[in-house]
């Protein structure tokens, strides 16, 4: 264990691994966190949207979409539309009924999982890494997958974009107002209903695009949804619900804990993510950066 830690190659590569996993998690968790913060809905379909995105990406690329980035954009739009429909047609009628929300979001995740199995079969499907970043990067004696660095960069760009959106635009101001105090936001005439749909679309789109961007690393396979959902939940709980900064830092934190944890204490591989979470919530129920009660 100590020998590993003193090995600079190990440290550098695992750090980069942590960052890239964190980047992927951020794409997934940012939307989850916003949705929860604004609508108080624990959207358990979020993992399904990620998986659906990955599968849609596979099909788009097969159908001749020229590159991964376009596919991610198109796939993101597709899942955003689906998410918006789901919010409008189903979730809308369940405001305040948190048990109903659990039931329906889990129910829809069953449907999506089975639908993907039906449409795309049970085999794992690859998403090719874009040609330009396919060969590994060799810097100062370290070899590292170039694509993962792109993922980290992309996550940071998305984070900045979201930050600007939330902190610097009128829409963002309305979202913040809604997260902080919903009755007040309603009272001052913010179109809360439209805001819900927009935020849900945004979250679903990010998750779907995340699935495609994660594709070259993770592939699309049955069970991807169930693998990712707990990670999103942990990130959001740890970082604090409704907080973009929390989701950002939480994602990278989990990236580090997961990557280093499973390398250094493989015996705890199954619980490596849950133990820190138990500690954090037990002593700080609002999460590390949360303002509101979880």
């Amino acid at each position, binding site marked *: 264990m100590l020998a590993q830690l003193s090995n600079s190659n190990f440290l550098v590569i695992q750090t980069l691994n942590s960052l890239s996993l964190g980047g992927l998690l951020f794409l997934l968790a940012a939307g989850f966190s916003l949705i*929860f913060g604004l609508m108080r809905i*624990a959207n358990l379909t979020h993992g399904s949207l990620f998986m659906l995105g990955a599968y849609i990406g596979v099909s788009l690329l097969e159908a001749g979409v020229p590159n991964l980035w376009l596919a991610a954009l198109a796939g993101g739009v597709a899942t955003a539309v689906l998410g918006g429909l789901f919010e409008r047609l*189903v979730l809308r*009628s*369940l405001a305040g*009924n*948190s*048990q*109903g929300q*659990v*039931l*329906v979001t*889990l*129910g*829809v*995740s*069953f*449907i999506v*999982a*089975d*639908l993907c199995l*039906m449409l795309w079969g049970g085999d794992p499907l690859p998403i090719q890494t874009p040609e330009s970043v396919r060969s590994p990067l060799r810097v100062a004696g370290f070899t590292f997958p170039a694509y993962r660095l792109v993922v980290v960069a992309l996550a940071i760009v998305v984070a900045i974009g979201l930050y600007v959106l939330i902190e610097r635009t009128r829409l963002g101001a309305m979202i913040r107002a809604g997260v902080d105090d919903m009755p007040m936001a309603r009272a001052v005439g913010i179109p809360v209903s439209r805001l819900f749909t927009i935020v849900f679309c945004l979250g679903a789109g990010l998750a779907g695009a995340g699935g495609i961007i994660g594709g070259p690393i993770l592939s699309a396979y049955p069970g991807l949804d*169930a693998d990712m959902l*707990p990670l999103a*939940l*942990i990130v959001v*709980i740890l970082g604090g*619900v409704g907080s973009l900064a929390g989701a950002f830092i939480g994602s990278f934190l989990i990236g580090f804990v997961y990557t280093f944890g499973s390398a250094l204490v493989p*015996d705890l591989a*199954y*619980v490596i993510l*849950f*133990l820190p*979470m*138990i500690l954090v*919530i*037990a*002593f700080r*129920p*609002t999460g590390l950066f949360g303002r509101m*009660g*979880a």
Partner: protein
Amino acid sequence: MSRTAWLAGGLLALFALPLVAGEFYLNLASQMLIAALFASSLNLLVGYAGLTSLGHASFLGAAAYLSAWLSLHLGLAHWASAPIALAGTVLTAAVFGWIALRATGLGFLMLTLALSQVLWGLAYRWVGVTDGDNGLRGLTRPEPLGVAIESADRFYWFALLVCLLAIGLIALFVRSPFGAALRGTRDQPRRMGALGFDVWLIRWLTFVIAGFWAGVAGLLFIWYHKYVHPSALSLQASAEVLLAVIAGGSGTLAGPVVGAVMVVFLKNFVSAYVERWNMLLGFVFLAIVLFLPEGLVPGMRRLIRRVKS
């Protein structure tokens, strides 16, 4: 009067089932009973305490594993292993409740999920005790009062008796002063504190009691299956029982029973005829939420009342 008559008729039909149903249907019915008790135990938390737990399989699994381990490794007889397993389960619930009740709402849900995942990980990894993903097998069913319950009909009767007793006691519990206090903590926790109720203690005791009944369901589970695998502790198992409670109607006595029967039926019976049964299950949940958002039992009651008036 008619209510009593209905109840008596229903009970009679339940006890008479083995006279008409074949072995397969009896075994299915036994599983429904186990699931019904399990869901009823979770309902104490979800329905009456307003605490949505996504880790209730912990207690069913803990009881099953403990009982299996005690008989396989220590060679204990059922009369000894069952109470010890229950005691161990209650202890687990006491500790888990103590941790999980530091939060409410989504935090509580996540803590129960996390704690149950730790237990699941333990079942997977502590191979010396749990035999990992091979599971524990080679178990027997007990012989309560010297009566063998190896056959499908005997086991059904046994499970029926246990479940009726357990659900009866749960009904008493819910209608007791403590049950009223519990519902109070669900609706107005602050007011309950001002009225002199120790809200935390009430919730914690309920958590432990819910764990106890899940443990009883766990004993029935292990006696029925004579096998336990880490999947009994999985997130999927916890989610399934939660869905049963909510779909049937949380906070009612009949709701979780109906929900559990429905889930077992869809999963084990309809799946033989419908290839896409996972999708069907999803659509059933969707339909319930859209048309009977408070759950099957309260929703149907509302509809019947509307038709009558």
